C-alpha cells in the first residue's frame, strides 16, 4: 500500500499536479475562507451584540418576541449539518450568484453556516466584559449606543480577535467540504484525486496544505489578540 502511494510514478504525477493545480487551489481556498468569514462577521457581529444588549436586563432591551425569533433562528441554522445546509441553500445560492457550482457559489452556504456561529462567538466574547465597566459608563451619562460602540466592543477587541480566528479556521474546514458540491480549492483537489481517483499522495499534500493554512491563520490571530490587549503589562 505505502509503496504504491509513494511509487516513483505517483510522485512524478503528484509533482505535476502540485505545479499545475495547487497554486489556484490555494488561492481559491484562501479567497473563499476570508471573504466568507468577512461577510459572516458583518452579519454575525451585530446579531451577537443584539443577543447581549437586547436581553431583558441588557443595556438596550429589545422586544421579547424578537429575541426569541433571533435565538431560535440562530440555533436552527447552527444545528443543520454543513453538508446538508449546502444543498438546502441551493435556491438562495442560485438567486444570489446565478449558479450553484463553483468557487464563488460556495461562499453563500459558507456564510449561512458561519454567521450564526459568529453571532454566538461574539455573544460569548461580550458577556465576558466586566459589568462594572458598563455601569461606570452609565454613571457618566453614556447612552446605550455609546456603551455598545465605545465600551462593549472596544473593550472586547482582544477577545473578538481570538474568536474571529476560531471562526476563520472553522470556515476553512467547511470550505474544504464544499469541494463535494463543486466548490473549488484544496478540498476539491483532496476529494477528487484522493477519494474518486485513489491518488492518495495528492490528497495528503492537499491536507498538509490545509493544516499549514490553519496554523498560519491561528498564529496570526493569536499574535493579534495578544498584541492588542492592553491589560497585559507591556512597556509603552
Amino acid at each position: 500500500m505505502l509503496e504504491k502511494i509513494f511509487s516513483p510514478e505517483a510522485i512524478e504525477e503528484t509533482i505535476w499536479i502540485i505545479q499545475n493545480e495547487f497554486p489556484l487551489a490555494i488561492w481559491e481556498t484562501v479567497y473563499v475562507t476570508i471573504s466568507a468569514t468577512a461577510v459572516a462577521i458583518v452579519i454575525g457581529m451585530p446579531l451577537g451584540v443584539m443577543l447581549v444588549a437586547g436581553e431583558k436586563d441588557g443595556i438596550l432591551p429589545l422586544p421579547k418576541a424578537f429575541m426569541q425569533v433571533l435565538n431560535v433562528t440562530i440555533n436552527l441554522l447552527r444545528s443543520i449539518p454543513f453538508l446538508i445546509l449546502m444543498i438546502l441553500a441551493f435556491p438562495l445560492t442560485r438567486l444570489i450568484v446565478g449558479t450553484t457550482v463553483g468557487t464563488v457559489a460556495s461562499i453563500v452556504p459558507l456564510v449561512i453556516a458561519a454567521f450564526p456561529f459568529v453571532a454566538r462567538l461574539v455573544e460569548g466574547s461580550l458577556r465576558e466584559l466586566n459589568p462594572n465597566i458598563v455601569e461606570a459608563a452609565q454613571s457618566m451619562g453614556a447612552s446605550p449606543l455609546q456603551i455598545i460602540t465605545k465600551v462593549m466592543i472596544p473593550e472586547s477587541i482582544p477577545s473578538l480577535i481570538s474568536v474571529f480566528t476560531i471562526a476563520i479556521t472553522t470556515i476553512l474546514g467547511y470550505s474544504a467540504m464544499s469541494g463535494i458540491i463543486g466548490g473549488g480549492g484544496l478540498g476539491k483537489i483532496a476529494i477528487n484525486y484522493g477519494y474518486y481517483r485513489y491518488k492518495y499522495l495528492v490528497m495528503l499534500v492537499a491536507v498538509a496544505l490545509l493544516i499549514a493554512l490553519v496554523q498560519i491563520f491561528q498564529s496570526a490571530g493569536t499574535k493579534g489578540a495578544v498584541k492588542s490587549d492592553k491589560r497585559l503589562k507591556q512597556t509603552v
Partner: protein
Amino acid sequence: MIEIKNLSKKFQTAEGTVYALKDISLNVKKGDIYGIIGMSGAGKSTLVRCINMLEKPSSGTVLIEGKDIGVLPESKLREIRRNVTMIFQNFNLLMQRNCLKNICFPLELAGVKKKEAREYAMELLKTVGLPDKANAYPAQLSGGQQQRIAIARALATNPKVLLCDEATSALDPNTTNSILRLIKDINKKLGITVIIITHQMSVVEEVCNNVAILDEGRVVEDGPVRAVFSNPKSEAGRKLVFPSGERKEAKHA
C-alpha cells in the same frame, strides 16, 4: 444640594420581596463631605446608585438642587449624571484605553471636541498628581494610581457632586490616606459636594463632616461625625464604633 425623601427600594427575588432600602430621608448640604457608613449588605451601594438613578427607587424622591430627578426621562438623566459623577471600589477604568483617553471618555460622551478634551484631561492629570501617565494603560498602574485616574475622569465634566462607592476599600492604608487627602482637596478647591460610601470608620473620621449610619436598609442615626461617633445611640452605631468587646473595656476604664 441633595435631598432624599422617604426613599425605598425593593427587589423581587425567588424568595419574595426584599427591601434593600426602607424609608430613607437624608439631607446633604452644598460643599459638604457626607459619609454613609454601614456593614456589608446594609444597602449603601443601592442608596448611592439611587442618587444618580442607576437604580430606580421603588418609592420616595431624590432632589438635586431642588429638582426631582426620579421623574426625568433617560436623556435628561444622562445630563444629570454629568453633574453627579461617581468613583468605584474597583476603579472601573476602560482597560483598553490609556489614561488620557480614559479621562477624555466622559467628555467624548458629552460631545466635547477632541482637542479641547485632551487639553482639559492633561490638566486633570496634573490635578490628581499623575502628569506623566497620560500614555500609560490602567494595567500598568498601581491601585492608588488607577483610582487617581478614575477621580480625574469623574472630574472631567465639572460635576457638582462626587459619589464615592467604597472608593478606598481595595487600597492599602497609606494609599487610602493619600486618596482621601485628594478628595478633601478637591472638595475644598472646587467646592464639589462629596458623598462617601464606606464600611471603614477611619475613612469617615478622616474626611467627613457629617455621617449617616445605615443598617438593614434604614438610616438608624445621622448628624455631625464627632457627635455620632462619640456617642452612638443606635445598636448598629455602637457596633461600628466599638467592634466586639472594646466597649466593655472602655466602660471599666
